[in-house]
């Protein structure tokens, strides 16, 4: 419940400019599913089916994590290039029209 509230609270005001990186960032965070897949794969006494499923889970989960964070970083890199010292001002400008 607290997590739901925090989820809403934390991003309640985001400039349009950042919608996509934010989507990509949250996308990377649900890569935490990797942890779940690791647990599945690490269970003792599993049969072949659990092996395959757990292994696939780890593959997909880690693709989610690594890809998600790298893509987000590349997007945000673009913003940074602009005017390194003045970035904060640029942001607040966009915020006003995010509506």
């Amino acid at each position, binding site marked *: 419940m607290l*997590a739901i509230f*925090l*989820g809403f609270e*934390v*991003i309640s*005001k*985001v*400039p*349009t*400019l*950042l*919608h*996509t*990186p*934010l*989507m990509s960032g*949250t*996308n*990377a*965070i*649900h890569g*935490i*599913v*990797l*942890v*779940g*897949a*690791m*647990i599945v794969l*690490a*269970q003792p006494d599993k049969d072949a089916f659990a092996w395959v*499923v*757990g*292994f*696939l*889970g*780890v*593959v997909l*989960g*880690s*693709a*989610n*994590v690594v*890809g*998600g*964070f*790298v*893509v987000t970083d*590349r997007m*945000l890199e*673009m*913003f*940074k*290039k*602009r005017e390194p010292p003045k970035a*904060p001002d*640029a942001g607040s400008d*966009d915020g006003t*029209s995010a*509506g």
Partner: protein
Amino acid sequence: MSTNLANLLYLIPIVAFILALRFLSNPAHARRGNQIGAAGMLVAVVVTWIQVGSTSWWAIVIGMAIGGGFGAVAARRVKMTAMPQMVALFNGVGGGAAALIALAELHRILPEPGRPKIDIALAIALSGLIGTISFSGSMVAFAKLQELIQGRPITYPGQKLGNLSLLAVCVALSITLVSGVQDEWLLWVVIGGATLFGVLFVLPIGGADMPVVISLLNAFTGLAVAIGGFELENNVLIVAGMLVGASGTLLTLMMGRAMNRSIANVLFGAFGQVSAGAAAAAESDGGTVRSATAEDVAVMLAYAHKVVFVPGYGLAVAQAQHDVRQLADLLEEKGVEVSYAIHPVAGRMPGHMNVLLAEANVPYPQLKEMDEANPEFGRTDVALVVGANDVVNPDARNNQGSPIYGMPILNVDDAQSVVVLKRSMNPGFAGIENPLFYNPKTVMLFGDAKESMVKLIEDVKDL
């Protein structure tokens, strides 16, 4: 490591994720936010690694190497223009992983005496269902954006009813699963049905709405992951998944609002389906399309006082941002006032154009948001539309029958004249006619945006 200690250590990634979201909401710290999130993820993985012990460690390593390697290479190689589909792809694999966990858990606990408790069975059914929808839906979104399948809505009679019944069947089977008939094949059927539903659910949605859909599926994946956390009794999964589920839902709503469309409308409106009436109306206006040569346009631009560039997806496809910048610089040397009007959803992701123009080092003050740009068009000599279409479609203002009626647009038709750079007369990504092209003020310059830009630069130089 004891479970208690692990749970305590799991607090680190949880706090990191919350901070990451917080920072990502602010342009000044966004990049650091992402790094904090990544660091939190690393902690979570290490803690889990230590906790689960050494069983099958090599399989985990190999799996991570394959998945992580693929993710890193794909994410590094992809062009900036293809980012939205990359996000869809990575979202899909996350959803797929959540569904796999459900399968594995059911498989593990079924043979146990007493069979799964009802809450665990519910969690398995739900995360299987939602994770799978997210997986197949994201794959279709990916295919659409990658143009592997046509981006326009695919519709057929009885579609909504069909989809609804399919979902109902899946839900009914899930309920059966929960209420006691706990056979593995039942979950397989649910997953099969959900795969089909995910595909059918995204197919009728037009490409212009894809970002909203991806964002929604992103929230779905978060939810599926959280439910997976209940199955495995793992707190970090529950909290991080919920965080994404909630923020993803909110983000979806915000994106919808930026486009002035309700989510229900996006999902069920089959946006961009050319309504026969509207298309006929556009043609029967008898408007003719005037096309111009680059020389003509160069003259118009060079002798204007004020030129506004209106970039759209065509700019991104052609990677013409540097040429646009060059042309703008040339015009400025000639004393022309230059600015850029950025529609919030131009391109295929909100903020897409800002990213591209920032890459070309366009001076920030020249970028005008829609509210700022619209009043300016009245005193603009030439509005140069570079590969934008739906965001300048006057039908959104005037034609109640148009699927985009009510969407705020850039009023380029207020300018003295409009030049549209476009590959062909094909309708835009949303698949709707644009009367702007038939407007007597408008001239079309056909061709790839980059090539047209290069020609324009040469011709302006020659003047």
